[in-house]
């Protein structure tokens, strides 16, 4: 009897010996499917950083008393969003757990949780330094240990566009060993090897402590994936950040020959500001996003017209973020800046802006924000894209050449 009671208790306390909660399935035709609770799952997601007007990048939205995720969760559910992507958890992992649980339990929305891997540490991410690597690894593993049992967790993402630093042009880092190589191309490849080997080490460790959730690697475009193919074999999913305008080009097929992993478009989108005409532009944003989602769907598993290696995407982003232009200046955090931060000719509708600077980082939200009184939550104003994507998800189809009306004039 005693034995029976003990046995019963152990079974009740332990995890059921079922299949992994989330995993990637390779189909007979070579296509990939993300499986959640043993059912295929298409990631219909958004990048989520609910920073209020007037706050900056270091604001702890996880502790926001106005609980933006409740208002947003309801709106997301109405739209059809099933996943949010967080770039990095807050410092207090208990509040993070609460947000993940609220989103999942009340709105059925799952969480992709990321880590910057110390990329924005000052003075630089010394990925070739053993102590730095160990610290980054332990930070990630602590996060995984703390959050892995949350039912809402979908998978982990390591890094974002960190690979753009390999050339030494963005957030440069190096080491004496690498610098000695001299040749810029050799230095770039060495940095790639160093970074991707760290990713692989962390992925291996995560698998040991959390077999229930896959590990994805964030990567800007497909740059340097030939190196990752040799050094980051234990990654389960490639999470790409892609800004190629209306289309993702040949990325789906190209990936098969460089780094044959399931692909999630972890960041893509279109800003809602026309830098040439200097006005808000919901039409182009909606048209671009609809086209992008159409390509994602075309390349999901079992669609004969696509590559079958895409498992979904998370649009950048849910709401505008007013702090992003000149993020060091708190005076600008309450201003919806219209000065462009970067240039991308694939967003052709406003590329004629001066110096071709057409990408407005503060205007990527599919919801705009309006300042509310006091500490109340900023008002959410769904843009056209919100409805267009909602309709697309209800009735997915290939967008070929939608006739788009706009105000560009003759």
């Amino acid at each position, binding site marked *: 009897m005693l034995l029976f009671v003990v046995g019963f208790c152990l079974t009740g306390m332990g995890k059921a010996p079922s299949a992994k909660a989330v995993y990637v399935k390779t189909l007979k035709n070579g296509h990939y499917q993300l499986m959640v609770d043993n059912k295929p799952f298409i990631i219909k997601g958004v990048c989520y950083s609910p920073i209020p007007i007037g706050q900056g990048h270091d604001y702890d939205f996880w502790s926001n008393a106005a609980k933006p995720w409740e208002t947003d969760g309801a709106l997301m559910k109405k739209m059809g969003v099933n996943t949010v992507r967080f770039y990095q958890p807050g410092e207090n992992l208990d509040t993070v757990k609460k947000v993940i649980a609220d989103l999942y339990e009340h709105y059925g929305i799952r969480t992709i949780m990321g880590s910057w891997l110390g990329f924005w540490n000052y003075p630089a991410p010394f990925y070739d330094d053993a102590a730095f690597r160990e610290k980054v690894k332990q930070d990630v593993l602590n996060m995984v240990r703390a959050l892995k049992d949350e039912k809402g967790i979908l998978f982990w993402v390591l890094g974002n566009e960190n690979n753009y630093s390999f050339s030494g*042009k963005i957030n440069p880092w190096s080491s004496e060993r690498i610098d000695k190589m001299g040749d810029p191309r050799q230095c770039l490849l060495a940095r790639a090897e160093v970074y991707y080997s760290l990713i692989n080490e962390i992925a291996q460790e995560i698998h040991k402590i959390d077999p229930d959730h896959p590990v994805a690697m964030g990567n800007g*475009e497909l740059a340097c994936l030939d190196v990752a193919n040799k050094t980051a074999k234990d990654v389960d999913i490639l999470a790409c950040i892609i800004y190629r305008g209306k289309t993702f080009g040949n990325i789906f097929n190209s990936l098969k020959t460089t780094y044959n992993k399931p692909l999630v478009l972890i960041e893509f989108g279109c800003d809602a500001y026309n830098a040439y005409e200097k006005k808000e532009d919901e039409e182009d944003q909606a048209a671009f996003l609809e086209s992008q989602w159409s390509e994602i769907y075309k390349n999901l598993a079992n669609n004969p017209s696509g590559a079958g290696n895409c498992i979904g995407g998370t649009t950048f982003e849910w709401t505008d973020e007013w702090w992003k232009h000149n993020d060091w200046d708190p005076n600008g955090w309450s201003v919806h800046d219209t000065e462009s931060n970067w240039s991308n000719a694939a967003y052709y509708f406003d590329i004629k802006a*001066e110096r071709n600077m057409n990408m407005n980082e503060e205007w990527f939200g599919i919801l705009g924000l309006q300042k509310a009184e006091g500490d109340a939550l900023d008002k959410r104003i769904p843009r056209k894209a919100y409805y267009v994507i909602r309709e697309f998800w209800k009735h997915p189809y290939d967008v070929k050449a939608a006739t788009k*009306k706009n105000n560009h004039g003759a």
Partner: protein
Amino acid sequence: MSWTFSAFAQEPGPTKAQDTAALKQKIEKNDADSLSAVEDLLDIYFADNNYEEAYQYLESLAKDGFDKSPEIYFDLALTRSEEIAYWQETKNWEGVYDKSADYKKEIMDHLDKAESLAMDKPSVLLGVKFLRWQATGEDDPDRAFGLFNELLYTAKSMPSSATALDMIKQIGDELASYEDKSMARRFYEIYVSKLGESHLTGEELKAMALQSLNEDNMFLAKSLYEAYLGQLADNKDLAAKETVSVADKFVATGKEDGLDPGYAEAMYQKAYDLIGQAAFDVGAQYRRAYNLERMKDFQAAGRQYQGLLDNYKEGVPQKEIYFRLGVLSAYAEKNIPKGLEYFSKIKAEFPKDPMALDSFYQLGLLSQWQGQTDKAKEFYSALLTLAKELNLDLEKNDLVLLTRERQKEIEEKKEIAYGLKLFLEGIFKLAEPGQRAPLDVDLTARPAEMDLNQSTKFVVTTSNPQTGCLMPAYSYEWSGQTGSTNNIPNAPELVTDYSLSGFKVVGVAVVDSSGLQGAGFEMVEIENPQISGE
């Protein structure tokens, strides 16, 4: 507000003050003339965004007395369409996406009914086809493609009446506000072709084209000009001259970007294809070359400037062309010997002209860069001697001041000034075989031709390395004749002006944390109105 269909209106529309009740009284059963009053009534309803009342009234007409009128069914569809457009305009996205599916079904039903009753009414038929295409476009692009062809066919089949012309132009104007301008051009072509059937003279077409340009309708203007030129097919000489004249209207100048420099060059080429070089007088040939230079097609610009020197004896601004060719050869083509050759021609043929100063400086600079310091010293000395002979202010003349800097560098065996050295390395060294591909650096001044002391803005635009939203932090090293600005900013823009006339060559080098990435140049011309006026 989207396109408003008003082809049925026979009289000027009413003012808002007019009572809708009075208009309703005018509308009698089975009375075709009362359709005009319906249109007036709709104008009032639409102006007030009162679509539901308009719709209900039209429905009552369709049920009582107008059941055989295609216009009423068209108006029912139009009313729903206008309401959706109003929601879009006011960003009432819930209206658009929650209600418009039902509305669109109603639109299609009414259009089907209107079409079945309008077989002998081409104007109504055209409106039906347009509205059906418009209502389908966003939801079913494949079907919309076929519907647009039907629309085009209907427009082409219409008799060339004033009403038809007006409707076709209205549709073209509406399409000109769409992203794909080719649809507008196809409608304008039909419009222009129907104008031709109306036996308009070439001069009338030309006048209409000019009017369209004045109304900022470049697409219609192009179609009208092309129809006009088509009428000159029997007279190649005249056709070529007129084609050049049309090109001149779209060309870039130093003062303005031009309406469509690419179209201008296409027209110049068309004129050349007709009768060769005879199509161009000196002025036209220069405009063609300069248009290409502003388009940054430096190779083609060089060919046309050279054509100016080769084909014309009188009126050619020879020294200016030599200088332009020298700069383009050296800094765009990266062919230093060819550049030196053109600069030497100025020295040889215009030794006492102020432009010789520009040539001496460039000859000196390129020699110094090549390590030929003795030659460079000679050119710099010649520049200073000539400047004295010309009684120039030696303490203010920018070329004299730059020359002294260069002389000092040679005397003290120092490197060329940092910014200038980076510029020259960016132009010449990064182009050498085996070097990594340099960044494309475009430097453009607006305006590029200006008066003394008139402000101009130089702007640097670079091609983008693959770094997503993370832009590399560049620094910008400016060099050359940078004008009156004392503190040159380390920024991609430079606003300046010039107190001395002539050509000014400005360079910029773009540098990031991994070193020199690329370089660009710009050549501007400062005019002295007093001298120009003489």
